[in-house]
Every structure is written in structure tokens, then in C-alpha cells.
């Protein structure tokens, strides 16, 4: 039995009377790529946001490495340094250049020297194919470019885990591929990734495992071949009928 890197045990989250997550338990190994799939309102995003405490779980436990996020007195900031996140709507800082977007957190949070951070940022921008945009402001970029900058910005903190919350859902169709390609090559570097996505082709190709959520319940937790070819639950079959 391997020792999983992320452990989630009976995770509940409610907003007032609304139970969004109803007891989710799973594990994620180091270097694993997880696709989180499900109908809208199923709790996918909430689940993801519990992994860096943008949402505080109502009950249950989450461990990343040796840190229990849900323990009292956990240093949230320390946890977040290790967990990068990419949002559906990018959320780049509009008043900062692309380079400043990427260097701001390492300089401010980790105390990295400016020229070191800039060198690292240029390398990251190169790896997402945008080193020529370093001095542009985000509003001059296309959606796909913005999302690639957002990925570089998250990677600049050198996290061990990357969370993606519907990273291509706000993009024009012709820009989806460039973002997925970056994510694909990131997956090949051995990054541990959890991706909420509607891109079934991508999930099939890149994910090691598919988590299918419906109504706040983890219905399927299986390899993609099994999920797409032979889903065991009726709910997953209904969902796949609609989207494929």
C-alpha cells in the first residue's frame, strides 16, 4: 500500500442549510493527475477549493503531505504556498504587467530577490510560450494567453500541487487547446494535479483517475478508461450520455 500524498476523509461542506459536499473520501498520490467531473452544482469546485482552504470544510479531514489542513491552528498561508491554483476567470492582477504578475508572490511571500524572481519568471513564461509578453498588461492578452500566464503565476511559487478550477470554461473554443497543452506538459513533469473540467477528451487522455461527483457525493473514483467505457453507476451513464 503506497502512502498517498493527499488524503481526504469524509469531507463535508455546507453553506447554511445547503449541503454541497456530503462526505467525500479519496486519496491522491504524488504525481497523480485527477480529473473531477460532474454536472453543475455537484460540488466539484467546492471540493477543489477545500484543498487550499478557499472554502473551510464544515467537517472531515484533509491532509496534504504531513500537514492536516483541517487541524486547528494550521498555518493556512504555509499550506497555500505549496498549493497553486488556476481559476476559470484567470484573476490576473490587471494593474501589473505579466512579469509582475508572476514575480509578485515569490518576492512578497517568499522573499525571493527581484532579479532572481524575474529570471525564474521569464523561464516559466517561456515554458508556457509567452516570454515575449512579459512587459504587457493582462488586458492586452487573449483569454488563452491570460490563462497561461495564470498557470505561470501559480507555478512561480514552486508548489507541489496544482488545482485547476475549470481552466478552459471561459475560453473561446480556439484557445482551449493551447491551455490544455500547457497543462499536459505540466502533467508530464510529474506535477500532482487536480482538475475540475468539462473537457472529456482531455480527462480521458491525461488523467490518471476520474472523480465523478453528483449531488455532493463521490459516485465514481476510477481510471478514465473504466469511467468512459464502462461506468458502473447509472448517474455517470446518464451524465456521459448528455455530454458525449
Amino acid at each position: 500500500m503506497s502512502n498517498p500524498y493527499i488524503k481526504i476523509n469524509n469531507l463535508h461542506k455546507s453553506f447554511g442549510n445547503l449541503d454541497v459536499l456530503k462526505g467525500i473520501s479519496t486519496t491522491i498520490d504524488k504525481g497523480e493527475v485527477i480529473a473531477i467531473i460532474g454536472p453543475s452544482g455537484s460540488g466539484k469546485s467546492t471540493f477543489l477549493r477545500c484543498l487550499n482552504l478557499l472554502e473551510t470544510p464544515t467537517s472531515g479531514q484533509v491532509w496534504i503531505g504531513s500537514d492536516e489542513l483541517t487541524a486547528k491552528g494550521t498555518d493556512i498561508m504555509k499550506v497555500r504556498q505549496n498549493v497553486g491554483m488556476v481559476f476559470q476567470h484567470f484573476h490576473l492582477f490587471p494593474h501589473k504587467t505579466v512579469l509582475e504578475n508572476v514575480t509578485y508572490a515569490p518576492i512578497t511571500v517568499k522573499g525571493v530577490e527581484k532579479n532572481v524572481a524575474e529570471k525564474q519568471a521569464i523561464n516559466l513564461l517561456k515554458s508556457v510560450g509567452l516570454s515575449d509578453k512579459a512587459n504587457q498588461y493582462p488586458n492586452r492578452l487573449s483569454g488563452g494567453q491570460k490563462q497561461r500566464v495564470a498557470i505561470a503565476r501559480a507555478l512561480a511559487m514552486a508548489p507541489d500541487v496544482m488545482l485547476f478550477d475549470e481552466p478552459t470554461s471561459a475560453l473561446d473554443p480556439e484557445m482551449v487547446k493551447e491551455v490544455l497543452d500547457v497543462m499536459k506538459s505540466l502533467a508530464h513533469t510529474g506535477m500532482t494535479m487536480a482538475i475540475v473540467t468539462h473537457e472529456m477528451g482531455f480527462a480521458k487522455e491525461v488523467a490518471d483517475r476520474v472523480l465523478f461527483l453528483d449531488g455532493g457525493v463521490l459516485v465514481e473514483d476510477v481510471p478514465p478508461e473504466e469511467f468512459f467505457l464502462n461506468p458502473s453507476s447509472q448517474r455517470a451513464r446518464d451524465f456521459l450520455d448528455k455530454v458525449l
Partner: protein
Amino acid sequence: MDLDFLRIVPSIPFILNGIWVTLLFVLVSAILGFLIGTILSLFKIGNIRGLKWFADAYTSIFRGTPLILQLMLIYFATPQLIGYDIPAFLAGILAFGLNSGAYISEIIRAGIQAVDKGQREAAEALAIPYKPMMKDIILPQAMKNILPALLNEFITLTKESAIVATIGFMDIMRRAQVVSANTYTAFEPLIFAGLIYYILVMGLTLLGRAVERRLRRSE
């Protein structure tokens, strides 16, 4: 109709001198109001209940009662209560500073809260602590919402400052009244004072537009 602007010509320098008096008054009131407004807005967006309650109550009271009443209270009631014969200038800037502080606190609060929630989440996800997040991420973006409204508030302040004439402060308005009494005219000095206020307000409006244009350029 008995209309003759020549009658007030000798008094024009007297009224014009009121410009500096009014401008100084507005400037000091605006600075005081800005300081109070900034502090109150921080109370309002913060998590400390007592301070939040205080800031909300303060705003409610100063916005819910007439400015001229606040002015009169400070000017006439201070000597009665503590025996201090408060000068008109001090009473005026206190009333205007305290009053516009209430309005400015709302302008700043709304400006900060209008910044896209995602900006805060992105900063939090990057483990950026509260202080640098506010200083480097939220406030620079909030300024874009705040500055135009703030300049508007200063324009209002400039116009409304005329009510300090009621406690005898020698601003443009009061000077026009003095000239009016001395020359047995009403139309000419008041129209002249109105013209000065209008020019001042237009100047501030143009300044506001220039600032807004500049802010928009970085978008």
C-alpha cells in the same frame, strides 16, 4: 428694474479675496474628511464588530441630519457646553470634516468592495498576506472606483461650504452678503458670488475628468 453692476465694482476685490478663504476652508475640511473617511472605511470592511458598529452608527447620524444643524451645534453649543468660544473657522472645518468623513467612508468602502472578488481569492491562493494584498492588489484597483467619486464629494464640499456664512465666517458667500448690505443691492453681489462658485466647481469638474481619463488609460 434697478440693476447696476457698477455699484459693486469697488467691492469686487473684497469678494475675490474670499476665494482663498473658501479654498483654504475646503482644503482643510477635505483633508480632515478624507482622514476620517479612510479610518471609518477600514472599520467597515474589517472584522471587529464594535468598530464596524461605530462606523455604521457614525455614518448614519452624520448623513441623517442636516449639515447646517451640525454646524450650528458645534459653533453655538460648544461655548455653552465647555465654555470654549470656538472660532468660526474651527467650527466650520470640524462640521464639514466630520460630515464629509461619513460620506467619504462610504465612497472608499464601496470602492474596495467593488474590486472583483476573484482578485482577493487569487491573492489568497498565492499565500499573499492581508497587508500586502490590500496595499498592492486591492487598493490600487479600488482607487479607480474611488477617485472620481471622491472628486465629486470635493465639488459638493466646495458648494456647500457657503453655509459657513451663517456663522459669520468670511468666505465668498459671507462677503457677498456684506456687500449686499452695504450697497443695498442683492442681485449683483449674489450673482457675482455665484459666478465665482461656478468657476471653482467647473475647475474641479475638469480636473476630475482629466483624472478619470488618466485612470482609464491603464485599462
